[in-house]
C-alpha cells in the first residue's frame, strides 16, 4: 500500500468528523473509554492486588487512607466504596477493558461466524444450504439470557459464559443478513458470469461475495455493538443479583446487579457503573449512526413535509 492511498484513507476518515457531529461525539466518547480502560488495565488509584481489592499492606505502603465499606463518594473515593470497602472508581476503571473486550470480541466473532453461516446457507451445495438454514433458524430463537444462565451453571460465573451465549445468539442475525445479501448477489450478472465461466465457488466467494457483503455487515455490527454491550451488562446484572456473596470480577453489570440489594441506602454502588455502561453504549450508538449517516448523504438532508 503506497502512501497516497494511506493519505486518501486518512482524509476520508478526517472527513467523517466534518460530515457528522454524531460520529465526532461517539468517537470522542469511545476514545476516552479506551484510554480509561488502558489506564485501568495497568494502574488504578486503589488497584494493586486482584480485581481492585486493596490489602492492608499495600495501603500502608502507598500511604493511602483506609478503605471502609460503604463510604459515600468523597475526595479519597470519588465514587465511594462497596460492601467490601473496595474503591468503586478503581473497579470501574478495571471493568472498562472487560466491557470493551467483551463487546468487541462478541461483535467480531459473531460477524465472522455469521458470514460463514450465511454464505453456507446461501451459496453452497443443497445439503449444506438446508442444514445451515435450519441451524440459523434454530440459533435465532435461542434466548441469550437463559443460555447464559445454563452455561453459568455448567462452566461457572466467568465472562466466558456470557460471551459464548451472546456469540451463539448474535451470529445468526448476521448470518440471516448475509444470507439475504448473498441471495441478492446471486441474482446479479457478475456472479452468474463467474459461474458460467467455470470459476469455482470458493473463488467466487472470496473474490466477489465476501468483499461485497462484509462492509455492510460491519456497519451493521458497529450499530449493534451498543445493544450488545447492554445485553452483556443485563445478563451480568442478573448474575450479580443472583450472587449470594460479593463478586471479585469487576464487571460493570455485575457490580450494578450486586449493588441492587443496597440500593435504598448505598445508591452509588449501582449508580456509577450503570452510568459508565450508559455512556459507553451511547458512544457506540452515535458512532454507528454517524457512520450510517456518512455513507448515505440523503440522511443528512434537512427536510420537512412539503405538501
Amino acid at each position, binding site marked *: 500500500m503506497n502512501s497516497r492511498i494511506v493519505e486518501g484513507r486518512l482524509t476520508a476518515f478526517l472527513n467523517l468528523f466534518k460530515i457528522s457531529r454524531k460520529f465526532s461525539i461517539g468517537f470522542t466518547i469511545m476514545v476516552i473509554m479506551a484510554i480509561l480502560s488502558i489506564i485501568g488495565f495497568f494502574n488504578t488509584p486503589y488497584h494493586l492486588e486482584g480485581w481492585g481489592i486493596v490489602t492492608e499492606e499495600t495501603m500502608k505502603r502507598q500511604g493511602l487512607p483506609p478503605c471502609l465499606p460503604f463510604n459515600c463518594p468523597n475526595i479519597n473515593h470519588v465514587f465511594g466504596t462497596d460492601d467490601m470497602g473496595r474503591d468503586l472508581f478503581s473497579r470501574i476503571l478495571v471493568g472498562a477493558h472487560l466491557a470493551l473486550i467483551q463487546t468487541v470480541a462478541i461483535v467480531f466473532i459473531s460477524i465472522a461466524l455469521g458470514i460463514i453461516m450465511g454464505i453456507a446457507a446461501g451459496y453452497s451445495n443443497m445439503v449444506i444450504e438446508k442444514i445451515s438454514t435450519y441451524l440459523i433458524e434454530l440459533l435465532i*430463537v435461542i434466548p441469550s439470557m*437463559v443460555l447464559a444462565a445454563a452455561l453459568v451453571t455448567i462452566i461457572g460465573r466467568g465472562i466466558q459464559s456470557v460471551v459464548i451465549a451472546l456469540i451463539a445468539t448474535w451470529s445468526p442475525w448476521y448470518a440471516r443478513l448475509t444470507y439475504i445479501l448473498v441471495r441478492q448477489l446471486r441474482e446479479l450478472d457478475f456472479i452468474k458470469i463467474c459461474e458460467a465461466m467455470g470459476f469455482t465457488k470458493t473463488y467466487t466467494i472470496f473474490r466477489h461475495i465476501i468483499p461485497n457483503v462484509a462492509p455492510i455487515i460491519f456497519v451493521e455490527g458497529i450499530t449493534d455493538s451498543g445493544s450488545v454491550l447492554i445485553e452483556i451488562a443485563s445478563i451480568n446484572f442478573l448474575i450479580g443479583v443472583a450472587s449470594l456473596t460479593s463478586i471479585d470480577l469487576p464487571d460493570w453489570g455485575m457490580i450494578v446487579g450486586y449493588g441492587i440489594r443496597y440500593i435504598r441506602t448505598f445508591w452509588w454502588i449501582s449508580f456509577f457503573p450503570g452510568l459508565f455502561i450508559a455512556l459507553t453504549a451511547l458512544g457506540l450508538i452515535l458512532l454507528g449512526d454517524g457512520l450510517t449517516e456518512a455513507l448515505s448523504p440523503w440522511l443528512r438532508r434537512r427536510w420537512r413535509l412539503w405538501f
Partner: protein
Amino acid sequence: MFSLNYIIKRVVSAFIVVLGILVLTYILIYFSPGNPAYTWAGRPRGPRAEEAIKAAESELGLDKPLYLQIYIHINRFFKGDWGISLRFKQPVISVITRNLVASLELLIVAFFIAIPLGIFLGVMSALYRGYLVDKVLYTISALFISFPRFWIAILLSVFLQMLGVNLFGRIAPSYMLVIESVSGSYIIDSIISGKAEIFIDALIRILPPAIIVALYPMSLTVRVLRYSLSEKLYEEYVKQAISFGLPRSRVVYRYALRGMVPAISQLHGITFAYSIVDVATVENIFGRDGIGSTIVKAIPYNDYPLIIGLLALTGILFIVVNTISDIIQIVSDPRVRI
C-alpha cells in the same frame, strides 16, 4: 386463501426448530463438564449426593444409547414431565408457566405502549427531519437505546421510593389471597372475577416497569421510521398520491406508513426477543415474579432442570412470535403470493 399453504409450511418448519431446540437442550445436558447426572442433580454435596445422582441417572436414561436418550428427553418434554426444580421443589413445568405468564404480561403491556407511541413519534421525526422536533426525538431515542433499562429502572424505583409510592410486586399483598388464579396474569384474572380495585392495582403496578421495557422497542421504532419513512415518502406512488391532492395525514399514514407494516412487524418480532432480557432485569428491580427472578433464584442452586426447561419454553415462545411476525409480513403485502 393463498396464504394458508404458507402458514402450514411455516408451522411445520417451526415444529422442526422446536425439535432442534429440544435436541440442543439435551446436548447441553449431555456435554456438561463432568457427569451429566451430576449437573442434572444440581451438583449435590453431602451424604445424600450418591442417591440424588443415581436418581438423575435413571431419569435421564444415561445407560441407554444416545439417540434413545434424546428420544426419551423429547418424549418426556411433550408429556410435560420436565423434572423437578431443585430450588422450588415443584415440577419444572408449573414453575415456568407461572413465571412465564407473569413476564409475558409485562412484555405485552410494554409492547402495547411501545408500538403506537413509537409509530407516532417516528412519523413526527421523519416528517421534520433535521428540525427541532426531530433533533429532540433523535436525542431521546438514542439515550433510551443506549441507557441500560435496568439502570433507568433503578433510578425510577429510587425516585418512586423517595416519593413514598410503593409499587413493588405484581399486586398488593392483601389482594394476593383474595384473587383466584385462572390464567396466572392478575390483570386477566381480575377482569374474569370482576374485581375492579384489583384490576386497577395490578395495572398501576405494571405501568412503571412496562414503560421502562417499552423504551427500547419504542426508540427503535422511532429510529427505523426516521430512516426509512422519509425514504418511503420519495416512492413514486406516494408522490402520485400527493399530486392527486390527497391530504397530508392520508398520504403519510395510509400510503407511506402502510408500506412500512412488513418492516415494522419484522422489527418487533426481533425486539420482542431482545426485550426479554430487559423484562428479566426490570422484574428484579420492581420485585415482580417472572422469568428474571426465576433465573436469579435458579443460578445459586445450580437448578439445571429449571434452566433447561426455561430455555426450551422461551425458545418455543420466540418461535411462535417469529412465526406470527413472518405471517403478518407476508399477509400484509398483497404483492407476495405463495
